[in-house]
């Protein structure tokens, strides 16, 4: 017994090292698998509030710039609406505008500030300054002014962690515009502007420069949200599908605000998808 105690005492450093390292491995592996570890995320209240504070200081210095970009975005939207109103046939747009006033839309956007983000790691996340108390739910899609950003992974009362599309766990259902071939967009490169499109069949007639948009199959994003263009088409030996490089048209490194998509008919679509699976 004394010898055993002596042994433990003598190797206590090594034992501590071994045990802690095993704990770390356990954490890493579990964290990569399960979705429910909210405590581990930056939506955690304490960390979230520190992030929000340091972001506030940064925001202060970039306020003008942010204002200008918002103004530009607004002008662009107004331009689109004005032109659409002028050119739409049979006053179709005016009719649509009328229905806007008396019914709620299928898709609604909740604006939120980005308080923290990484884009240079293998698994990248982003923290938003809105949470459960603002009606956000796990699984909702997040859009930027130019395209898709990611999906909400976990929530606290006032913060939300978003799984960016620049994450090895991210999988986005997309299609090729006007050609209706669909595939899955994943991130395997280390370049934050380059994505990989999988599962597009080999017989598909695609070419460099084709536009990639969301398919609308998932409940997170509406259909036809812009993502990027085909940059290169690679052939994998012995595979039935292409491996396509997609260049994103927007820069995820300088987003400072985002819109969370809420889909009113979410439950309805979910039940029908579940029925399909059975």
């Amino acid at each position: 017994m004394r010898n055993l105690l002596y042994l433990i005492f003598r190797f206590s450093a090594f034992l501590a090292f071994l045990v802690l390292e095993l704990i770390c491995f356990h954490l890493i592996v579990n964290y990569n698998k399960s979705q429910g570890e909210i405590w581990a995320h930056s939506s955690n209240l304490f960390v979230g509030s520190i992030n929000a504070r340091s972001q506030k200081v940064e925001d202060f210095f970039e306020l003008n710039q942010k204002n200008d970009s918002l103004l530009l975005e607004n002008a662009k939207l107004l331009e689109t609406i004005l032109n659409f109103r002028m050119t739409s046939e049979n006053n179709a747009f005016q009719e649509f505008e009328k229905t806007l006033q008396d019914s709620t839309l299928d898709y609604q956007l909740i604006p939120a500030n980005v308080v923290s983000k990484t884009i240079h790691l293998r698994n990248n996340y982003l923290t938003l300054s809105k949470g459960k108390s603002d009606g956000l739910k796990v699984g909702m899609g997040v859009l930027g002014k130019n395209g898709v950003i990611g999906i909400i992974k976990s929530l606290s009362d006032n913060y939300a962690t978003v799984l960016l599309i620049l994450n090895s766990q991210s999988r986005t259902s997309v299609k090729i515009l006007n050609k209706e071939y669909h595939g899955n967009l994943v991130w395997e490169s280390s370049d934050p502007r380059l994505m990989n499109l999988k599962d597009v069949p080999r017989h598909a007639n695609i070419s460099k420069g084709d536009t990639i948009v969301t398919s609308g199959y998932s409940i997170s994003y509406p259909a036809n949200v812009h993502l990027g263009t085909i940059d290169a088409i690679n052939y994998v030996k012995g595979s039935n599908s292409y491996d396509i490089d997609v260049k994103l048209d927007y820069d995820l490194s300088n987003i400072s605000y985002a819109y969370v998509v809420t889909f009113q008919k979410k439950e309805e679509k979910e039940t029908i998808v579940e029925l399909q699976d059975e």
Partner: protein
Amino acid sequence: MNKQVTRNIFRAVFILAIQVILLKRNLTLGEFNYVHLTVYSIIIAMLPYNWNRTLIILLGFVTGLFVDLFYDSIGVHAGATTFIAYVRYYILNWMAPTEGYKKDSLTAYQLGVPWFLTYMSIIIFLHLIFLYSLEAFSFVYLKEIILRTVFSFIASLFLVMFGSLIFNPKY
């Protein structure tokens, strides 16, 4: 003795704050994003020589876990920092000056700039390579791991050098 403890706590808080608030907002030079300033490993490296080894390993784990909370990478930084805390003992023994460590503090002021830089470069390099290996979790990304380690190592070492020249702490 007491001063040593307070100095170490102060240093840890200061460096951790810089790491998670400033250095996390990375400088990404367009498509070249291999430079990540990661300097908090020097907190563990500069703990006094005579402290209990098990205690240092535990402190390494806690420090890494704290950084992990901010990097959304639970376990990765903790694993790398625990590793550093463990191998520190062997590095120090290997690098011991002929007359031994007279003062317990491992600073450039006590042991000279060349010794300090060699020690720091070994610690930071090991920390980074362990960190990026854990992050990738497979050696498929070997090229990426090596590029990240090399470029981050050079940048981080420069920062540590600047810091220790400016502050030049006694303890």
